[in-house]
């Protein structure tokens, strides 16, 4: 691999990290409250709103059914409306975020549902409001699960970000296709794959480390 490819690889890595970080952040901002609501709004639950729950559930399922590559292309007009262009890393963040929100919402919902019903009952018996129960009981107790869920989402976003090259999204995946495949430079393809493997490993390890730090459910995790 010639030395002049190194800067290109570096730049593409930064683009991928940028797209994944921003879309993971925005996806969490949208997915966390949505997930909490989905987990607490069935009939008889804290924020009992069965019809809203059903409709939101359908919307989330629909969003998750659309293959990502189709989502990217289908929402081009919306992307242009939001960021003014449909090309580049900023434009890629729009479909990445739209894919992340329902995915993260389901992961958060699952983590919240794992919290023992007895804890909610204890908090209700203390006279807690539904919002207090969510803030002081459900989210802190579900935090290890939420952290692992966000890790999974970030890893998936790294994969998705490789597809946004289709709309000029740049990043590592785009580089691999354009240089490695279209220009017959298998060493670029190999480098891209290795970098992606390293990135996924780093994200996964970081996520597991944080999850272990916040998990107080077993004595072995005593951190002091």
């Amino acid at each position, binding site marked *: 691999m010639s030395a002049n490819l190194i800067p290109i690889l570096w730049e593409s890595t930064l683009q991928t990290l940028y797209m994944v970080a921003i879309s993971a952040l925005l996806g969490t901002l949208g997915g966390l409250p949505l997930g909490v609501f989905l987990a607490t709004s069935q009939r008889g639950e804290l924020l009992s709103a069965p019809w809203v729950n059903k409709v939101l559930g359908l919307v989330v399922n629909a969003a998750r059914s659309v293959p990502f590559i189709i989502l990217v292309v289908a929402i081009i007009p919306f992307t242009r409306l939001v960021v003014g262009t449909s090309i580049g890393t900023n434009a890629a963040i729009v479909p990445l975020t739209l894919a992340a929100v329902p995915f993260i919402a389901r992961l958060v919902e699952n983590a919240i549902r794992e919290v023992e019903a007895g804890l909610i009952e*204890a908090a209700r*018996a*203390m006279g*807690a409001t539904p919002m207090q129960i969510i803030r002081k009981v459900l989210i802190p107790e579900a935090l290890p699960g939420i952290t692992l869920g966000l890790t999974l989402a970030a890893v998936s976003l790294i994969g998705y970000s490789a597809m946004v090259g289709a709309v000029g999204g740049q990043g590592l995946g785009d580089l691999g296709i354009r240089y490695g495949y279209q220009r017959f430079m298998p060493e670029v393809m190999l480098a891209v794959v290795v970098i992606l493997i390293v990135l996924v490993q780093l994200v996964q390890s970081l996520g597991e480390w944080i999850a272990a730090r916040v998990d*107080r459910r077993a004595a072995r995790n005593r951190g002091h």
Partner: protein
Amino acid sequence: MTGTPPANAAIIFDKLGKSFAKAGSGQVMALQDVSLTVPTGSITGIIGRSGAGKSTLLRMVNGLERPTEGHVQVVGRDVGAARGSDLRAIRRDVGMIFQHFNLLASRTVWGNIALPLEIAGTPSGQIKARVDQLIDQVGLTAHRDRYPAEMSGGQKQRVGIARALATSPKVLLSDEATSALDPETTQTVLELLSQINRDLGLTILLITHEMAVLRDIASHMAVIEGGRIVESGPTYDVFAKPTHATTRSFLSGVTGATLPAFVAARMTTNRPDGPAQEVIRVTFAGQHATDPMLAMLATELGIAANILAGAIEEVGPHPFGNLLLSIDAPRAAEARAYLEQHGLTTEVLGYVR
């Protein structure tokens, strides 16, 4: 208990009923026509088998369940009718402890006890002082920064008790609080509850399936069966003169008076022809529990009684005994009359040859 003037009552259940809609087929009555008064400052225990409705009844007191009929009053306020902030205000006056503790795994001992105060909006300076005091009160000062996963069941229940006391409630509800603990730990937790009851004058309503818990700490008790209260009163009276079969069956587990298998197997309900022994249960209550009644039976009437099983123990502050005897059948009626005259209760269980 029923008939106590309401001014003296911490909790009043008035003709309470609760039915649940059952999926597909109509309704299930969890509670029916339950009327019970819990005296202020008492430790009142409700005993019943699983599914008898005791858990539902307990949850009516802090509005975790709502009655479908009747009323529940806690320190003068109607819980069933309260909504929103009124209901939350009542809940801060009613502490609750649980069989499985229900502590937050994400919070330390200190943080768990602080939770109800945070929920009540107590200023942080006051929270600090109050939590430190509570940790001291339940003897967990050395464990304040530990997480529940690092503690034993007994320690966790102490945290649960401190947490329940944080907002200085007037009533403490205990949902099978010792059922997940070993016998020794159970004793220490029951002693702590008794001590809190004495020191703070706090009314405690507990549910259990263990008669020993009632024997050890309850001043008043009720027996629930199939969603109805079948017997209630001061614990000592119920132990001494149980009237319902369910109560007797619970009692047989704690009073040490079960027939040995070899006698039970040969026993018949009707007196057989020929020589036979009558098997009776004698319940000793109050001062008579310590009188040497069997010796007096022998010296005064010349009747010898065989002791088959028995135990003398304490129910609250009173001695309480239960003896199973066999007496020569022709003279058994005479013996029973003599024992009854001296304030004991007798019951014929059957006959053996």
